């Protein structure tokens, strides 16, 4: 590897750490970034995959229970018709949003630090959306009839009710899943070609050759590719905001105290990005260590992601405060009671977890040292994941336990199938992610090469400036 020492590069004093350690040449970059795919299978990877597959097996068992016995195997009841399933749905879809934010919005803002984490985050989006999409479908009770939600000229001679938020959800989630996949794959095509060309064995060359469609790095193609990629980023940006807005409409346009709130769309979007960045950290911190991506995913990336987490965490905290304020200011006794019930009712412990994990814990990120400490960040990211799940549970299920008429109140407690579907989906997500890390380029290689060119250009200018000042 021909790397120049990081010390020789003039560093902007305002920048705490570089976005790319050293200036490895293209061969070294390709080699180091493709190593997880081209090296022999590691025992650790196989072991972890095995554990996750066991979890996935349990998840399949739980799905079997739901499909063959019906949703009565859940703890759901009337009034708590939406509980773990919808909580999990909102949690997973929210996690997905950080991937789109990193790959699309930061691309439009020309944030250089996004380049080495975007592919990773996009894959996370894709798998999170796959997990999310499952829950509303199994919650239908008869999921094999899910296509009734699609407007087609059926013999039933009836159409979906487009004035309800639930058909909006169908369109939002399916569009989001599709566009995320297209964006991810379009970015992958040049890297799959790199993988085809770097692979030594015939099988990989053929498989990646087919997957890359015959990409030959043509300037005539790059020209359109760049425009198309940027346009997809531009389209994904409002899309990601619209998706979580529509998810929040499922609640906000209803009448239920605790759901009927105009602050939901922005507060849900901020919460989605908050939890998604936490998930990127949860996945990235072990992966960069295990696969030796530390030269492209530097402390600078961790620092920046922490700052986004801190900012969105504060927005979420503002949302919590504003919910309380409006509950009091509205003068509506049922609304006030819904919040009073969160604080002192039977689910107060979950509300306390929510407040601790989402409001109190992230404040440690004000300390610059905490923002680059992988251990603190890893633990915090897990706390935030838990806290955001608790938030969705409090909103979805706890609001339902206490509606307008005390005679219809009922508590909710989950069954083993509820728990199994939650933890099983994490394992399934993990399996998909492990397979992605092994078989696809997890870092956008062509983009890192382009980034290296840009940074060299900057180094050059910085060096020239220093020389001019010295003279």
């Amino acid at each position, binding site marked *: 590897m021909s790397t120049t020492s990081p010390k020789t590069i003039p560093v902007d004093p305002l920048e705490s750490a570089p976005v790319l350690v050293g200036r490895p040449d293209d061969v070294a970059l390709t080699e180091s970034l493709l190593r997880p795919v081209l090296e022999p299978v590691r025992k650790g990877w196989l072991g972890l995959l095995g554990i996750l597959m066991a979890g996935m097996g349990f998840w399949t068992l739980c799905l079997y229970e739901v499909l063959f016995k019906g949703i009565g195997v859940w703890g759901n009841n009337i009034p708590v018709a939406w509980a773990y399933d919808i909580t999990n749905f909102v949690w997973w879809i929210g996690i997905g949003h950080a991937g789109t934010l990193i790959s699309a919005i930061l691309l439009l803002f020309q944030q250089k630090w996004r380049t080495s984490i975007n592919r990773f985050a996009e894959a996370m989006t894709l798998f999170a959306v796959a997990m999310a999409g499952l829950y509303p479908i199994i919650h239908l009770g008869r999921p094999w009839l899910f296509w009734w939600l699609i407007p087609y000229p059926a013999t039933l001679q009836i159409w979906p009710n487009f004035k309800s938020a639930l058909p909006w959800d169908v369109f939002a989630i399916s569009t989001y899943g599709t*566009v995320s996949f297209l964006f991810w794959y379009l970015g992958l095509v040049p890297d799959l070609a790199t993988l085809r060309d770097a692979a030594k064995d015939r099988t990989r060359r053929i498989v990646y050759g087919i997957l890359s469609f015959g990409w030959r790095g043509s*300037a005539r193609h*790059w020209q359109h590719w760049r425009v198309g990629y940027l346009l997809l980023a531009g389209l994904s940006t*409002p899309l990601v905001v619209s998706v979580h807005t529509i998810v929040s409409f499922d609640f906000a346009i209803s009448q239920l105290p605790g759901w009927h709130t105009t602050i939901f769309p922005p507060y849900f979007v901020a919460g989605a990005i908050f939890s998604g960045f936490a998930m990127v950290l949860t996945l990235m911190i072990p992966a960069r260590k295990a696969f030796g991506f530390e030269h492209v995913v530097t402390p600078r990336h961790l620092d920046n992601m922490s700052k986004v987490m801190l900012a969105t965490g504060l927005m979420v905290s503002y949302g919590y405060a504003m919910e309380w304020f409006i509950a009091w200011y509205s003068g509506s006794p049922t609304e006030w009671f819904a919040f009073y019930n969160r604080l002192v009712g039977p689910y107060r412990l979950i509300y306390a977890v929510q407040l601790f994990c989402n409001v109190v814990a992230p404040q440690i990120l004000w300390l610059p040292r905490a923002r680059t400490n992988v251990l603190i960040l890893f633990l915090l990211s897990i706390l935030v994941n838990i806290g955001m799940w608790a938030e969705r549970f409090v909103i979805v299920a706890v609001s339902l336990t206490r509606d307008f008429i005390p005679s219809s109140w009922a508590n909710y407690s989950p069954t083993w199938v509820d728990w199994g579907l939650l933890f099983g989906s994490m394992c399934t997500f993990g399996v998909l992610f492990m397979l992605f890390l092994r078989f696809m380029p997890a870092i956008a290689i062509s983009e890192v090469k382009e980034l290296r060119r840009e940074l060299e250009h900057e180094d050059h200018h910085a060096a020239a400036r220093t020389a001019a000042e010295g003279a």
Partner: protein
Amino acid sequence: MTSFVLGEFGEEKALLDAARALRAKGIGTLDLHSPYPVHGADEALGLRRSTVPIVALVAGVTGAVSGYVLQWWTVGIDWPLNVGNRPPHSPPAFIPVTFELGVLFASLSIFFGLLFAYFRFPRVHHPVFEVEAFRSASIDGLWLSAAVGRTEADEVAGDLRRLGARTVSIVPEEGTP
């Protein structure tokens, strides 16, 4: 019968200069191949502005309009459904699906338009891949390719050597349309 003349260059500047020089001579169809988009390639090859945005705009507007019409006709005209006494034609309620379908159509047109119409993919077997060293085009190599008549091939190969190519190869294309 066309032949592909391939030249490999060591740095971007030499590559772009060679492309400009060959273009000035009016030689065949030129192309550059690189592992990342080279800045200035569009200008050196004299490429026109990409038309992808127009395709995306047309598709996006089509998607949005059809999304709106779909909702207006199904729940407003064909089967007016009274839920919460909202009017059969409720524009605010139709916005989310209209927006989503606009984005969906635009994205599909970009992806499939690029791959199948602009790039003419899938094409896993292209004459340039005949050169074993061309593998580097996706790793660290900067290549120039020129599709020329078989008779011109040797002359262009000579030009490429003169313009600083490190290696030059000629691939005759066999029986492709």
